[in-house]
């Protein structure tokens, strides 16, 4: 545990001493801020129109009109963002040959992987937390229900955790960061759209593909619904990513 934290601290320094984390956070906030603004403008327009047509106020749900689509968009941005955050994790160690230091130290392989995963998770959580400032505006000028918001953030965090696990695995496969990012981006995108494939595919496979898709599990949480099944899915997925990363190292040793 202590050695995993040693690795995580070093990785956090690598993120924070270089412009990577700041630039990624800035782009993420720029893009997500743009989405928030647009969706808010749309929600306002809708609200005014519905009021004019005499709909009762109970029909207007800010969670549903603003936050659910907003979080859906955030998830899409993450598909682009997180591969960029994770691409350096192992690829860079291989390129600079520092990997040899880690793998000949008495630290367990599992602790090295866990430490790197933890560091990326912490940076991601920090970036995610910054988007909470948008919600503060919603609370200042309206009265959204906080519970679904927290659920959606938990969903985003778990979704990101799974993306990072995919990114970590991709980074372990190559010493080229661009390839690592490309592999993880494609893998995440494909798993995301598995549910669409499921809709058009042969009947028996539909539920299986839908179950494997990130999208199917995230859409409920974005709407504020916690289902243990979804939480278990994300945790299992993340664990599988870390496990396969470990397998990559074991395999490479014998090649």
């Amino acid at each position, binding site marked *: 545990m202590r050695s995993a934290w040693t690795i995580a601290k070093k990785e956090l320094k690598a993120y924070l001493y270089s412009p990577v984390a700041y630039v990624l956070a800035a782009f993420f906030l720029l893009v997500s801020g743009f989405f928030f603004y647009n969706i808010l403008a749309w929600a306002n327009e809708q609200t005014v129109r519905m009021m004019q047509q005499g709909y009762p106020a109970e029909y207007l749900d800010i969670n549903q009109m603003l936050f659910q689509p907003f979080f859906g968009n955030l998830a899409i941005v993450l598909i682009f963002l997180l591969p960029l955050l994770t691409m350096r994790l192992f690829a860079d160690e291989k390129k600079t040959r520092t990997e040899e230091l880690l793998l*000949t130290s008495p630290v367990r392989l599992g602790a090295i992987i866990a430490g790197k995963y933890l560091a990326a998770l912490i940076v991601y959580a920090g970036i995610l937390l910054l988007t909470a400032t948008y919600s503060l505006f919603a609370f200042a000028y309206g009265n959204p229900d906080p519970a679904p918001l927290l659920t959606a953030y938990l969903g985003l965090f778990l979704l990101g955790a799974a993306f990072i696990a995919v990114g970590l695995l991709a980074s372990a496969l190559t010493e080229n960061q661009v390839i690592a990012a490309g592999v993880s981006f494609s893998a995440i995108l494909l798993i995301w759209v598995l549910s669409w494939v499921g809709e058009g595919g042969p009947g028996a496979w539909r539920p299986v593909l839908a179950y494997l898709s990130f999208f199917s599990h995230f859409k409920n949480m974005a709407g504020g619904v916690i289902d243990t099944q979804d939480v278990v899915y994300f945790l299992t997925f993340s664990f599988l990513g870390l496990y396969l990363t470990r397998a990559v190292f074991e395999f490479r040793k014998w090649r």
Partner: protein
Amino acid sequence: MIQVEHLTKKFAETVAVREISFTVDKGRIWGFLGPNGAGKTTTMRVLTGYLPANEGRALIDGIDVAADTRAVQRRVGYLPEVVPVYGELTVKEYLRFVAELNGLERRKIAAAVERAVERTNLQPVYGRLARNISRGFRQRLGIAQAVIHEPDVLILDEPTIGLDPAQIIEIREMIRAFRGSATVILSSHILAEITQVCDGAVIIKEGRLMATLTREEWGKSLEIVAAAPLAGELAAALAQAFPAVAEARCDGAVLKLEFRQPPSDLNPILSWLLGRDVRIREIKAGLEALYMKAVLAEEGRAS
């Protein structure tokens, strides 16, 4: 102590190391000598647990590397061929990180870092980013990280490569200081380096063990190269005149001598030769002669 027993390491189709065996006794410094691509780095990587062996085994202080890799890694300090430095950390942060990696207790880390810095004279760059330090300091930093946890065994892959002569001498001094306190194995393709620093040498070529030599052995042999071919009787006369010489042979212009004990003073022999009008062009230390013999013998057998 380092023991290597019938070690074989294959990569896909190629055999990088074939059936190598040698032993380095505790507190000794041994050299690992061979042309580039001979399998030096591969053997060292097996010793540090970075690569698994296909056959045979390696033991560090009696512990099998394959059986208890982590116990071995705690005892070993390793300087890889490319110094594994994180450019974004300062020298101080980097050494603290390596100390933590090696499981040093928190309260002992500061002292360990300080000791490693003192030993390798890193004080001038202590607060600098590792990516900004010069090659010589980088190599010293590599040695500092290898010794930070006071390992019993040090494995140094080409510790002086790419350094200028002054820096090479400095690094050699550092390595010599470990004699007695740690078992050291260092790789090199510079013969002079091995004769100056090491108690023994393992010579490998194309993954095969060519010879194991001790300082005793190479200290006993010597080659004197003359400017012109020598008469055969000269060797016999010399062996008769000097009882310390066990064997003398003339091979063209080269006079090959084997001593009973490593000689302390060559002057009597040299003046004897000068007295017989032998114009001496070069004196080759023993290891060079033995190295050439070991490597050439193989080539002779192959052809």
